[in-house]
């Protein structure tokens, strides 16, 4: 896929990319570098995936390296494990994160535990790529954010990107990682940063600084968060689409908030969280997934355990409701700028 417009920056050839192109670029980069890397999934071969993230791989590298699979996520995960334990570095696509559950046993009982249960004899460096999250009128089977099921499983690493630059750098690290990684791609962000205002005109990545992506190899280490916006009044912990919703909420509210894009949920960048909350004394946690037992509960526990004597107000959570993800009432479910602003206000007032 030829990205539009390239420039040289700091010795690197840079191109404007959206997340689809960035993921695709990461795949092409890794296919070039390592012939043990293979890619497969439903519609992921010839067609290049329903979101086109694996486009061009089959044409360029052959159908033995990028291929279509039967419609069976349990089978996809099973063969990925078998390939991974036998010398390959598979990147398996689950078409929507909502459809990962038929593969759940293979992921949580087999893939995650293989290294441990074999005393370190066997392991499978599998990367599972899957589009997640809502904001696309996808109803409850094309909108879910199931990250907490996997952060709760020892042995898995869990990554979620929020922009094209990170998508490529993090995916390359995930593929190179010798542990299994679940790589979530927030599909509402594929074509542009979405700030939660569904009535506004679609914004593309062209004008966003993170839409400029090196053409060649680079990586972003797993386990490192990014301070998206420094601030001193309140820390906002978020990831995926919520990074952009929170950023807009902060800009529109005038609060001097520090926004942290976690990028990797396991292992978590605890130092970034601790340093920030100790500085601001206040914390708001934002995610799309339902609240009860969501990853926000873990974040809140960690903040309480580590920053309690620095806290000046109760930690707030802004999340999806504890309901299935709705269709027509999507915007009543989806965490909004207004709810984030309200949470900041609550923690600042108390």
């Amino acid at each position, binding site marked *: 896929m030829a990205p539009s417009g390239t420039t040289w920056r700091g010795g690197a050839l840079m191109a404007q990319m959206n997340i689809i192109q960035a993921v695709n670029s990461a795949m092409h980069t890794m296919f070039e570098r390592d012939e043990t890397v*293979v890619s497969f999934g439903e519609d992921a071969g010839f067609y290049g995936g329903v979101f086109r993230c694996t486009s061009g791989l089959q044409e360029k590298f052959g159908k*033995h390296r990028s291929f279509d*699979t*039967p419609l*069976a996520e*349990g*089978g996809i*995960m*099973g*063969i*990925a*494990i*078998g*390939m*991974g*334990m*036998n*010398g*390959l570095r*598979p990147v398996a696509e689950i078409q929507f994160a909502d459809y990962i559950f*038929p593969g759940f*046993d*293979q992921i949580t*009982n*087999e893939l995650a*535990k*293989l*290294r*441990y*249960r*074999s*005393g*370190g*004899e*066997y*392991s499978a460096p599998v990367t599972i790529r899957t589009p997640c999250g809502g904001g696309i009128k996808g109803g409850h089977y094309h909108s879910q954010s199931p990250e907490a099921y996997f952060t709760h499983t*020892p*042995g898995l*690493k869990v990554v979620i990107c929020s922009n094209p630059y990170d998508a490529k750098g993090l995916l390359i690290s995930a593929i190179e*990682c*010798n*542990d299994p990684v679940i790589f979530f791609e927030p599909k509402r962000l594929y074509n542009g940063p979405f700030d939660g205002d569904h009535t506004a005109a679609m914004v593309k990545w062209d004008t966003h600084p993170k839409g400029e992506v090196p053409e060649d190899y680079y990586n972003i280490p797993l*386990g490192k968060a990014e301070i998206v916006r420094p601030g001193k009044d309140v820390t906002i912990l978020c990831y995926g689409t919520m990074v952009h919703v929170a950023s807009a909420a902060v800009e529109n509210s005038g609060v001097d908030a520090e926004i942290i894009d976690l990028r990797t949920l*396991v*292992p*978590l960048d*605890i130092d970034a969280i601790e340093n920030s909350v100790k500085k601001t004394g206040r914390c708001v946690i934002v995610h799309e997934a339902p609240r009860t037992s969501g990853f926000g509960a873990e974040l809140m526990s960690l903040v309480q355990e580590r920053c309690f004597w620095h806290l000046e107000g109760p930690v707030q959570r802004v999340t999806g409701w504890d309901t299935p993800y709705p269709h027509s009432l999507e915007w009543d479910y989806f965490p909004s700028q207004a709810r984030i602003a309200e949470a900041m206000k609550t923690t600042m007032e108390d």
Partner: protein
Amino acid sequence: MGEDENSNLHVPVPPHREGGTTFPSPHEIPAGHHEKPDIDCQGSQTREIAYGLLRVLNDEDEAVGAWDPGLDADTLRQALEHMVRIRAYDDRMMKMQRQGRLSFYMKCLGEEAVSVGAAMAMENRDIVIPSYRQQGLLFVRGRNLVDMISHCITNSNDNVKGRQMPVHYSWKEGNFVSISSPVGTQFPQAVGAAMAFAYRGEDSIACSWLGEGTAAQGDFHYGLNFASVYKAPCVLVIVNNQWAISTHRNLAHGGSSFAARGIPYDVASMRVDGQDFLAVYAAHKWATERARAGHGPTLLEMYTYRGDSHSSSDDPSIYRPGDEYDSWPLGDPVDRLKAHLVKLGEWDDEKHTALEAQCKEEIIAAYKEAETHGTLKDGPFPPVSTLFEDVYEKEPWHLLEQRGEVGL
């Protein structure tokens, strides 16, 4: 019995809980009955064997028919030795379990030929992803007995560091993949491992086992379909030992043979007399050569009988007749191979008794040596620090912190 005559729901029950010897009829198919198709045949050309029964040893203990693998006497004696040794090992380990020196154990009585025949028909470079009753693979591939026992008593010499229940062996050197308890998951994994061999253009294969009860799992069908679609060089084995704990095979299917499930997938499929070492060996040899030559997967149903309890935690006298194994019409794999060798003039009772005694001694000696690395009761166990190892390649901060909480 609490039966409701107004209910039309059919729930099958085993045919003979209280005793008796009514078995389904495949054993009536005589040895030597089936033709041997070419290894490059269509899956559908194996249909007759999928519904029939592949047998080589006849009632007169002779090897007959197209499937006779023509093994020499030394090889047959080697197979018999493996089976006798496995039986001695199982007996000793179960005895130790009864004395509280193992937390758990699973014997493979009656199923020895299933794994010995398979392993002898393969090369050691072929990956095996077994279920929990194929300890025979380890014996044929030459795993050290002390290491096996050390795993089962989870002492400091356990290569899986005490993390698994007994009999969940892992042995990478022997291409024996770590056993996991969830049943059926290994089939699609074996297909993936086989696809990796094919991807690299190597001619090694993958082989995997599950029970007939597990043939009800989605993973069984995922594995079969993926194997068929990608013509993966693998051999998938259903060990139909009639019982999944207390669940009789007639709750795993509504009839027909289990091997027949491969036919609509166009996977070469055969039902094999699992008590007949020569039939097991011949079927695996055929399937392995077919896979190696790039002609795709084979599904084998090993028609056998679980001669003992499911595990040390199970009491089969509650749900099946105690003498059922003695009545099993296809007999016992050790007895049958022994009788064949005797018939050939290559073995006798005296040698057999001596072999049994020798194996028993070996196992007792190995057990004693294993206990020098620690016992289940007194240890030493793997150091507590190993608790946090191998979750990831490198321990992330949260595990280092938790390690710190226990003072390590």
